[in-house]
């Protein structure tokens, strides 16, 4: 089949990554950071963030857009890490145990979130965004009042001096970078977290495999057209809930990997912006609300975090104030989400308009042609 490449569409899809490549190309020399430092930082951030961002792919596949509800999984991961810390489990076993503990919490939150999103079809993103605020309230109730009073917490280093509630910061020194340093490898002065990348590789293979399974195909069908999928006998609601549950569980694992790299939990804020930054990184990689790939994740992390690293230094060089660079990167994070959403909505409307025009033309040519028209695109 000879498919014509629409350069305008390709350019439009790649607009955000191109914009970021330009920003990075200008920012890197201005920042004055060495190539070695940059490479080290990017490698660390790739290991830290990729797993979290990969958790966003499955809901996109199921047509549920960018899952701001991944924050729920992040909270589950944090609760699990707090418990594991209190039980004084250390190292890799602590991470494995935290991952196991986070699963039931993530599943419960995922089922709840998925059920709510089923009631808000077509408005999943804003619903999941607000949902993350709602669950954050419950998370605070659990962590601030129930831990130490109802849920036993023994250690004073974790508990607030008043006897219940968790401190602002919980140290994860006992598991800090244990996964990253499990297989030590340094190439040309750049430290590569081999074990973390192996975990990411397994995750990528899982996603590739999952897309080919019956459930994966069902999700794609649901993502393309819920009505057609339902007619084909797919339980649309159940499939959508499963996609959110998988995303939430993976986000929990991702948060554990993220926090082991950081070495501490900011109990009340670690999760709050995680969804926003992960989604921004994915969009920077060229993904859209309805289409995202593993390649987008890798490209997005590299570009977004290069911008994050160079912006303060470049800002300091240009304006003499590093805070300008800091404002810039925060502004860019939110702006990129806005641009991506506007672009998605514009292209959706354009497609709808074109389909309407096509239908009008077909009606002009007679009813027979209409019957043979591809109604799936309308």
């Amino acid at each position, binding site marked *: 089949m000879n498919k014509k490449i629409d350069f305008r569409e390709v350019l439009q899809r790649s607009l955000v990554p191109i914009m970021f490549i330009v920003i990075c190309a200008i920012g890197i020399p201005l920042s004055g950071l060495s190539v070695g430092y940059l490479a080290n930082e990017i490698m660390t951030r790739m290991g830290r963030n990729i797993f979290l961002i990969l958790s966003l792919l499955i809901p996109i596949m199921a047509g549920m857009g960018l899952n701001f509800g991944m924050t729920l999984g992040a909270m589950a991961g944090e609760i699990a890490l707090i418990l594991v810390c209190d039980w004084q489990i250390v*190292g890799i076993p602590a991470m*494995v145990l935290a991952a196991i503990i986070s699963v039931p919490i993530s599943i419960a939150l995922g089922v709840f979130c998925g059920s709510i999103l089923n009631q808000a079809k077509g408005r999943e993103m804003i619903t999941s965004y607000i949902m993350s605020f709602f669950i954050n309230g419950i998370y605070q109730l659990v962590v601030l009042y129930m831990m130490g009073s109802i849920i036993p917490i023994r250690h004073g280093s974790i508990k607030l001096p*008043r006897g219940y509630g968790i401190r602002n910061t919980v140290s994860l020194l006992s598991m800090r970078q244990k996964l990253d340093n499990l297989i030590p490898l340094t190439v040309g002065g750049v430290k590569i977290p081999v074990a973390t990348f192996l975990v990411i590789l397994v995750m990528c293979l899982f996603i590739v495999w999952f897309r080919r399974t019956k459930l994966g195909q069902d999700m794609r069908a649901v993502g393309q057209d819920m009505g057609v999928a339902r007619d084909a006998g797919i339980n649309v609601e159940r499939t959508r809930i499963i996609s959110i549950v998988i995303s939430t569980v993976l986000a929990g694992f991702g948060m554990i990997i993220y926090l082991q790299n950081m070495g501490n939990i900011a109990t009340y*804020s670690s999760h*709050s912006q995680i969804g926003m930054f992960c989604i921004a990184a994915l969009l920077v990689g060229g993904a859209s609300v309805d289409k995202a790939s593993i390649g987008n994740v890798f490209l997005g992390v590299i570009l977004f975090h290069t911008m994050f690293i160079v912006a303060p230094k470049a800002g300091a060089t240009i304006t003499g104030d*590093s805070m300008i660079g*800091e404002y810039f990167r925060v502004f860019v994070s939110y702006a990129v989400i806005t641009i991506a959403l506007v672009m998605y909505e514009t292209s959706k409307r354009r497609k709808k308009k074109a389909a309407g025009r096509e239908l009008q033309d077909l009606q002009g040519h007679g009813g027979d042609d209409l019957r043979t028209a591809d109604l799936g695109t309308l």
Partner: protein
Amino acid sequence: MNKGRKWIFRIGALAIVLAVAAVMFVIGRGHTVYFDNRELAYNGKTVAAPYKIVVSVDGEQVAKLYDKERGMTDTMGQKFSMVVRITQEKGGEEKTSAVSMNLPYNMDGIILNIPAMMAGLPEEAYLTEFIQAPTEEPEEEPAEGEDDMMGEEELLTDV
């Protein structure tokens, strides 16, 4: 696959996950082991502190203790092995011994009195739990709503 078999697989998978969690619970238990070089009196018997004790764990020296000194190391799991090199008197000969022991699961911090342990006293004599002295702390209020810097804090302080 019939329903019965499906449930057997599900229960089996759950059992495996629970077993893994239980194993992690045991092998991942962290302890802080403190080494004391102090004189100890037990049941009317007094064990004197030697001039110097050097403790190595996993081939790495973790403590060099003179009289009334304390060292420490963090360890994972219940089995604890160390190499102890004791010099009884200044300028004297160094005696090396390898020691292996099981650490009690319920103790986070464990104090080992090395002279008593090397003198062959029972565990109740040389092993005690380390209990942190309570300290007065100002009330810490959780700061909710702080923006997460995605690990940028270090970067900002560098600037």
